[in-house]
């Protein structure tokens, strides 16, 4: 390992043994390039899906470029590839310098880098192919999930190893933020992705319905918290003092900021499920903790901004500080808005609308984007050991990017509020003012075009950024200078408290903290415990107390054909636009029918409640339209509703059903405890019988013939089943002749 190779020891004048070492900046350069490349790719995919919402022709008529498949590619690329690589880039640079030690192992650093890029490539291939677990930001299928776990553990070992070898006694607060991020992301990733494989790239979530929803948003919200917030706060606490030329405004405040976030964030997830079938106590806990988060978040924002005290004049001619100031302000704005959106009555309006998309982009473009840009502009001259190619271009990037964000979010906030208000509008006679869902979409199209303009500006900024990086890199020296750093080794730890204090040390927070804060592994373990214990307080009751998920006798599993139809629904990413969760609010039940009950989704592995209604809710879709209507609608939605923005799926009528996989899917579901009974043994025959019946009905009503072995009958079988069980007088016949009741 390069570390041992480059470490030497010398004695200084006073006889203290000094160790010689160097920082590994090659890895920082690698992550920097990856950040810029994947960032550009992820944002361009974002632009394409923004165009698709403004005009469905941008779906290009190909299954792998349709919105449902590309939307997860966009979110995964910008979160895990752009923000992820940016975090690693800044963390590798700052960790070594804050700990006065080279990374524990250069080999692990390289493994982390190449492993992570391979995962990104795997995501970019599998998501357009429709291989997905259908859980937001956890779409990647199980083999990739395993790879993520391995790479993440390598990163964790490398990081903890560096902490153990450090030459600085205390751990700076940025390091705490990194540790919390690393351990929490590991816990979230593992528990949310537990699943039963039903093939090389197909799996079903271990959890069902309410519990799956709970786990998903415990994960989903904390992915925002511990992948997009705490890592970047760590970066802020290192790079902001660097750029401002002075220490952070209040170190005390930064410690409170850290512990408050660690204590509070993990509880907040259920605010994504207000008014759904989640038990109300969980939703209320989520709301309360989210509102509490406002205080530490603003404390952190103020701490970041006030680091510029006495140096505000520098902002005028320093693009780096401009990026940081707007980035931290965006953190403040989105962490004010987040708690507000988690209040149930506000959420009732905002949920399922573009308001959430606007909220996310304030955070993602403003906070993550601008903090990354500021950090990289600061790093460029240092890691490429040359001058920044053009400060003017960086200034231009700042202004174009800022204008792009404003254009984007203002348009999309308007779209969200407009649609939310239209959904709930009643006329004087007590009927819905806009009973036709498409009307509420058509009204948004001008705002969608404005978003395309705003997003394009942000991408133009990104291209200027890339060009500036390229030109800076071109002026690098022929060989990078690797400065030798000298620092004494940490002497072995011995207790600061006298021997008398030792027996009661365990009772005193200060003493406890001082002794374990010196021991990074223990610190890591305790941070993990804080997060896990808090999670368990929410998870245990949701999973183990029966009253939380009342069952409904008439709810039975999907037939084998319906199950395969559901897999098509998952593959095409329908859940990205259609919810299956009717909230108990009058304007929802008027529009969609009886509100959704927790007992209805007990066999839903994974849950498909959705989080956004770009199209109408489908929870009670079954029986609303004849089979033939669905055949025509899938082939060309615009033929049925001229202004619909849904992509067309003509391939459903031509793609054959792979009958052999159906028994495997049923087996996997049975393993999860879904009571399939006899259906396990004759799944294929049952599916064929049901398919033939649907195909016959389509033909009899004047539709095309010969659809009995095409995917269209499977997805129709699924559509026609949705939401019907609770009104079924007896259990749906599953075992036996396999006919549709």
């Amino acid at each position, binding site marked *: 390992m390069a570390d041992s190779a480059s470490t030497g020891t010398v004695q200084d004048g006073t006889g203290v043994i000094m160790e010689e070492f160097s920082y590994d900046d090659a890895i920082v350069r690698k992550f920097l390039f990856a950040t810029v490349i994947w960032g550009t790719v992820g944002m361009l995919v974002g632009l394409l899906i923004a165009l698709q919402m403004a005009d469905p022709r941008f779906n290009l008529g190909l299954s792998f470029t349709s919105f449902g498949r590309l939307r997860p590619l966009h979110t995964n690329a910008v979160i895990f590839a752009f923000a992820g690589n940016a975090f690693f880039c800044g963390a590798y640079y700052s960790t070594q310098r804050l700990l006065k030690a080279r990374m524990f192992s250069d080999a692990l650093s390289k493994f982390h880098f190449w492993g992570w890029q391979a995962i990104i490539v795997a995501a970019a291939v599998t998501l357009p192919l429709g291989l997905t677990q259908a859980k937001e930001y956890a779409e990647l299928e199980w083999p990739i999930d395993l790879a993520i776990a391995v790479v993440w553990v390598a990163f964790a070992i490398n990081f903890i190893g560096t902490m153990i070898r450090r030459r*600085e006694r*205390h751990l700076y607060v*940025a390091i705490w933020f990194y540790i919390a991020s690393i351990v929490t992301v590991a816990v979230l990733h593992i528990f949310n992705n537990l699943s039963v494989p039903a093939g090389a790239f197909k799996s079903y979530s271990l959890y069902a319905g309410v519990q799956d929803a709970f786990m998903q948003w415990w994960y989903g919200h904390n992915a925002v918290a511990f992948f997009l917030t705490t890592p970047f706060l760590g970066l802020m606490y290192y790079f902001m003092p660097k750029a401002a030329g002075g220490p952070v405004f209040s170190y005390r405040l930064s*410690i409170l900021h850290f512990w408050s976030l660690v204590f509070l964030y993990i509880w907040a997830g259920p605010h994504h499920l207000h008014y759904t079938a989640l038990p109300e106590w969980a939703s209320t806990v989520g709301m309360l903790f989210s509102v509490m988060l406002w205080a530490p978040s603003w404390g952190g924002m103020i701490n970041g901004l006030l680091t510029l005290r006495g140096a505000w004049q520098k902002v005028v001619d320093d693009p780096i500080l401009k990026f940081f100031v707007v980035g931290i302000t965006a953190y403040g704005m989105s962490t004010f808005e987040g708690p507000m959106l988690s209040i149930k009555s506000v959420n009732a309006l905002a949920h399922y609308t573009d308001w959430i998309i606007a909220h996310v982009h304030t955070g993602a473009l403003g906070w993550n984007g601008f903090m990354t840009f500021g950090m990289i502009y600061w790093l460029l001259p240092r890691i490429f050991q040359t001058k920044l190619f053009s400060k003017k271009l960086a200034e231009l990037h700042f202004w174009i990017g800022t204008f792009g964000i404003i254009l984007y979010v203002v348009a999309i906030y308007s779209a969200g509020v407009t649609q939310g208000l239209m959904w709930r509008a009643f006329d004087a006679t007590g009927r819905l003012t806009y009973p036709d869902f498409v009307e509420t979409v058509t009204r948004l199209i001008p705002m969608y075009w404005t978003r395309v303009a705003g997003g394009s500006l942000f991408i133009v900024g990104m291209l200027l950024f890339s060009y500036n990086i390229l030109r800076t890199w071109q002026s690098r020296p022929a060989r990078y200078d690797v400065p030798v750093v000298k620092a004494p080794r*940490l002497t072995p730890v011995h207790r600061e408290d006298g021997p008398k204090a030792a027996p009661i040390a365990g009772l005193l*927070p200060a003493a406890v903290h001082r002794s374990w804060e010196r021991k990074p592994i223990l610190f890591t373990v305790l941070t993990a415990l804080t997060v896990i214990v808090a999670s368990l*307080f929410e998870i*245990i*009751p949701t*999973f183990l107390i029966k009253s939380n998920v009342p069952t409904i006798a008439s709810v039975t599993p999907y037939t084998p054909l319906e199950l395969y139809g559901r897999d098509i629904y998952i593959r095409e990413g329908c859940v990205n636009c259609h919810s299956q969760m009717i909230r108990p609010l009058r304007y929802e039940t008027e529009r969609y029918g009886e509100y959704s009950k927790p007992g209805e989704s007990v066999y839903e592995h994974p849950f498909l409640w959705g989080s956004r209604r770009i199209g109408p809710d489908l929870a009670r879709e079954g029986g609303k339209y004849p089979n033939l209507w669905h055949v025509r609608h899938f082939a060309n939605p615009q033929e049925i509703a001229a202004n619909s923005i849904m992509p067309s799926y003509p391939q459903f009528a031509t793609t054959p059903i792979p009958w052999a996989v159906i028994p495997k899917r049923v087996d996997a579901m049975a393993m999860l405890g879904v009571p399939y009974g006899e259906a396990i043994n004759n799944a294929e025959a049952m599916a064929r019988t049901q398919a033939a019946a649907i195909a016959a009905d389509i033909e009899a009503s004047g539709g095309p013939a010969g659809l009995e072995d095409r995917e269209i009958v499977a997805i129709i079988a699924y559509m026609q089943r949705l939401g019907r069980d609770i009104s079924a007088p007896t259990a749906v016949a599953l075992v036996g002749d396999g006919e549709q009741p």
Partner: protein
Amino acid sequence: MKLSDIMSNAGLSVFAEVALVLFVLAFLGIIWWVFRPGNARRWESDAQMPLDDLHPQQPRQREE
């Protein structure tokens, strides 16, 4: 008897109160630790860490 039966009948609603007390106590402990006058100098020196990439602020253990 299944685990879920045991958990359902165990009267676990007190969990929430226990959690509240534990977490509030832990948090109060942290506040006390942060604002303890004895730690003031430490925070000052820790805050300097990002500003010097080459020299540790507190390289060695304090001698007893």
